[in-house]
């Protein structure tokens, strides 16, 4: 049985879709069967970042409503054969998602893949709550700034109350992924430091992704950064994060001001 991960943030534009694609590809590179699922019905993006937009026939809504079978809607990545995409519909809206239908699709995906990574839409409405509803674990993507951190705090509250796991009285494992971190701006006090974010959210750190033009370039190329920019700093950070997600102990590095040098951060894992 596979593991269902929701990638969520509350706030938009913090890097959920980029992180979903990068983590999915990183896990698939290790030979694992991975599907990335776009829950942003009506504003789909994951197909673009994955470079699969010209191959979409059926989508999540079709499967939820029983119009198409799951294998018909799954799109296999051209570069990694163990990586699949279940795209969202662009013409429908989130009301087309039913809890019963999503539950069925997630259960089906769970039986076929090792990892089911759900890209949540921004906000706390139907799309976002259904994306997290059946998850086993959550990756919370935050940028080092106050509005993003407060929205993440809100999302953590929802993960602890509105998910199936929480309702069963179990605790959902949560991982913090700090994206778009700019060490120069953080040292000038223009951004929150890693320490501040960890202290406010008090959940374990999965990784720190440095702000980089490589990420934008990869998105425009339609390839996860962990496929097309493998040697870049953000790709390294995502690869390490994926290994930690899979349960490996990987030393935490946080980007420092000097390019190419990394600072060891001890004991931040179990904040």
């Amino acid at each position: 049985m596979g593991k269902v991960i929701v990638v969520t943030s509350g706030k938009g534009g913090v890097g959920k879709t980029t992180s979903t694609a990068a983590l999915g590809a990183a896990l698939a590179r290790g030979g694992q069967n991975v599907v990335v699922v776009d829950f942003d019905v009506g504003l789909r993006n994951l197909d673009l970042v994955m470079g699969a937009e010209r191959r979409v026939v059926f989508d999540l809504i079709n499967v939820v409503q029983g119009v198409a079978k799951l294998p018909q809607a799954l799109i296999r990545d051209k570069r990694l054969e163990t990586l699949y995409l279940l795209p969202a519909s662009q013409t429908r809206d989130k009301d087309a998602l039913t809890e019963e239908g999503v539950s069925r699709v997630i259960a089906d995906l769970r039986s076929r893949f090792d990892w089911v990574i759900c890209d949540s839409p921004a906000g706390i409405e139907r799309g976002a709550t259904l994306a997290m509803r059946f998850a086993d674990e959550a990756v919370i993507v935050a940028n080092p700034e106050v509005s993003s951190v407060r929205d993440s705090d809100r999302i953590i509250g929802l993960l602890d109350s509105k998910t199936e796991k929480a309702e069963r009285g179990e605790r959902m494992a949560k991982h913090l992924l700090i994206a778009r971190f700019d060490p120069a701006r953080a040292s000038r006090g223009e951004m929150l430091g890693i320490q501040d974010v960890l202290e406010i959210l008090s959940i374990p750190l999965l990784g720190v992704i440095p702000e980089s033009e490589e990420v934008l370039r990869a998105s425009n190329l339609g390839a996860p950064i962990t496929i097309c920019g493998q040697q870049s700093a953000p790709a390294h950070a995502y690869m390490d994060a994926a290994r930690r997600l899979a349960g490996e102990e990987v030393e935490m590095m946080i980007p420092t001001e000097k390019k190419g040098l990394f600072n060891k951060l001890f004991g931040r894992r179990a904040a």
Partner: protein
Amino acid sequence: MSEVTVLSAARQRGSMPLRGRSYMAFALTPEPPIADWLGELDVWLRGSSGFFNGRPVVLDLSAVTLTSSAVAHLISELGARGIRIMGLEGMAPEKLGPGLPPLVSGGRAAPVETISSRSQPASPPPARDREPASLLVENPIRSGQAIFFPNGDVTVLGSVGSGAEVIAGGSIHIYGALRGRAMAGTSGNRKARIFCKRLEAELLAIDGYYRTAEDLDAKLRNRPIQAWLAGETLMISETD
């Protein structure tokens, strides 16, 4: 007082479902001689007139041996005093005449506040277990979450996030950072206080007197503090 189970029948499309219900009823236990017992009751009722008005009362006849007509006479005597009998307890079923209230059994004793002989026209509050006067929250309170506890103190072991709020009838104790709102003494308790390990609050209030983040002394930021009410001023001082 004893608890009596009553079955009610409701008609519903051809079927006749029966549902059970439990009610609280007062139990009166006459003792022989009946005339003296009625006399004592009259004395007591003079001090608590109207106590039994509209109350369900069960007559426990286990302490007396009465004929069916004597029971009917007793019920009418009680009726003249404003006491209506809904059921009989401790009487042989064969002695039950057609004009008498039904026999009940299986009643369990329930606590009732001691009925003093002073006038007590208002109904006594329903007896129930006392609720705890404090609430312990072990997890951090996240943005958007609200803890509302009007009955007493709230203790939070973690932090209270920005955009979260804690509202308590009593005092508030926070063993982490307070980044959201804390409102203590909301049910008019002016002695309530707020304690936190680290002050980054958006708002502090006690009994409606409040201060927003803007009105907080910058020196108290990120410090452990307590807040209390002095007259109409919300005071804050550092603790350690």
